[in-house]
């Protein structure tokens, strides 16, 4: 059996990749994908612990996260399309009209 720490390290790596992509990339869609990556890193942690502790709680959390992520994808992609229609760019650095 694969030890728990392996799963945790892998999920940590996935999460770190997500954070890095989120901070570095300028394209909104890439940022969006990075967020999904972070969510799935967390999901992996949940299922790993669930398997280890023989508990169903972690699985339920994962399902919730997946539902939220799906909803988020729907809303997020709609926003991205709206932004692209008005600003004709997907570069976040140029979407800064809320600045004081």
């Amino acid at each position: 059996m694969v030890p728990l720490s392996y799963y945790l390290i892998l999920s940590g790596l996935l999460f770190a990749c997500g954070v890095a992509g989120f901070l570095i990339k300028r394209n909104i869609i890439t940022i969006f994908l990075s967020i999904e990556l972070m969510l799935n890193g967390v999901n992996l942690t949940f299922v790993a612990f669930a398997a280890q502790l023989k508990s169903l709680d972690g699985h339920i959390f994962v399902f919730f996260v997946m539902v939220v992520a799906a909803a988020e994808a729907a809303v997020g992609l709609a926003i991205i399309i709206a932004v692209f229609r008005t600003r004709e760019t997907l570069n976040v650095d140029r979407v800064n009209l809320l600045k004081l």
Partner: protein
Amino acid sequence: MHLWIIPLLPLAGAAINGLMGKHFPKALVNTIALGSTGAAFAYALWVAAQFSGLPPDQIPHIERYATWLSAGPFSVEFGIYLDQLSLVMLLVVTGVGFLIHVYSLGYMAHEGGYYRYFAYLNIFMFFMLTLVLANNYLLMFVGWEGVGLASYLLIGFWFLKKSAADAGKKAFITNRVGDFGFLIALFLLIKHFGTLQYDSLWKLVTRYPVETGAAGVLTAIGLLMLMGATGKSAQIPLYVWLPDAMEGPTPVSALIHAATMVTAGVYMVARSNPIFNRAPEALMAVAVIGTLTAIFAASIGMVQTDIKKVLAYSTISQLGYMFMGCGVAAYSAGIFHLMTHAFFKALLFLSAGSIIHGLGGEQDMRHMGGLRKYLPWTFWCMTVATFTISGFPPLAAFFSKDEILWQTWASGNRVLWLVGVVAAAMTSFYMFRLWFLTFFGEYRGAPASAEPHGHDSHGGAAHGSPHESPMVMVIPLVLLAIFSFIGGWVGVPEAMGGHAEIEHFLAPVFQSTAEATPSATSAEGAAEHESSSTELMFSAISVGAAAVGFLGAWFLYYKRTDLPGKLAAGAGGLYRLVLDKYRIDELYGAVFIQPLIALSTTVFWKGVDRGLIDGAVDGAAAGANETSNAMRQMQSGNIRSYAGWVAVGAAAVIAFMVWRGVR
């Protein structure tokens, strides 16, 4: 006897007129104002009848209604204290007050703010009745402050005129100085005796010995009370507000600044007689201040040209006499003079008001003259008043003033007596000067002048030749004239075949608490023992002084009308000094007011208020602004920088948890 009804009647009148009178027709305002005071007067008469039937052991008649406040062993109640002294005051206040209400109907008929005026008059009545009927000092103090308020409102009745508004403020602030002294006296009473109820206080005070030689707490209380009385009763050094108070409507001058409110100080001193009897030095101070005020104000009154100013100084001078009487422990003489003064001074002011009304607002006596023809009723009433105040027998003030002077002599204060007689001659002089200038000679006013004259912003654009006042004003004059004539007959001394009823009537108030006082009893006793022929001789001296004043005025202002101008020119600087009221106002201005204004401006306003308080408030605002400006830079609008902050924050939280070893 349900005495609470008496003060509450005018209060109800004031409340109805003051809150809703704006929408009432004049007739309804009149009915409410006059009805409430008239009913109060009628009830007071009924109370007087009941009172005379009370057995002596039930006097003072005390009614207690409720506890007002209680703090530990100290408590004060709402209650009424009716004895001979407060009964006399009650009748004077309601009676004279009612007549002045009637007079005001005519005088104020053309004025704006009609309902406001009557509401103020009624509230004044309420507070004055509270003052005289209270059964403890704190309730008296409520009335004391209340009449100050009513006075402020009525002096500044024509508040659009700056001089009137200023005079109101001056009266109020000057009174505050005196009230401060009175309040400290009350605190001392609470501290040393633990009560302010008259009946229990007198029991405690009478156990104290007379403070001869060494001044103790009673002397301190007496002097502080005197300070309060000098403010309310316009004595040296706090008299300055009263002449300015003539800015109010003339009936107000009559009611408040002559007949009733200013007598509050005299009443308070008389009411506190158990304290003053045990503090001879405080009592002496009362006598000296009264005598000084009497002659000081009389001398100013001799040169004033404004008819109301003459009467104002006359009021101050007469109040001085009352203090003189109280100061030699002849309280009943002081109260007697208070009563006759209420009649004749109200009459004088109302007559003056009638003249002012008849001349369309003219107050300068130099523009009057020959008014005997135009205002016959006023002339005769004024004549009675003038002869009364000057002290000619058998009119009222002859008996009361003479009683004060006689008691002063009998108590051994020869110097005070002499000053009092000189002041009496001066009184006679300035009153007959007023009389001759106003009613005799030729009319010196501009005929049918359309010029609106200064003071009482009275009358319309075109005011014809002088005319007599309407009947509603004349009737109170006549009634007051009758009282000024016969009012003194209740106090004819025994030396003249009278029975001095008023003295015997008031005696229990001042006797029952005075057993332990040799000074008081010796004065009374000496008066009894001196032979009556001596007393008659002193009366003759008083009448002689009055005659001297009369002859002087007759010679200068009737016979040789060219002389006063020359005399004034000859006296030069002295005349100017007296005409400028000895420049006391200027002195107070330089010594107290200007430094106070300077201190307030530089230290309190610019230093404390602007520097400290505004500095703190503005500093807090500016600090918040600075901080926000710095923090604002974080809101770059760049999503990735926000995300960076979130990541940094999350990392910081995790680092903290790891460091603390959270499980």
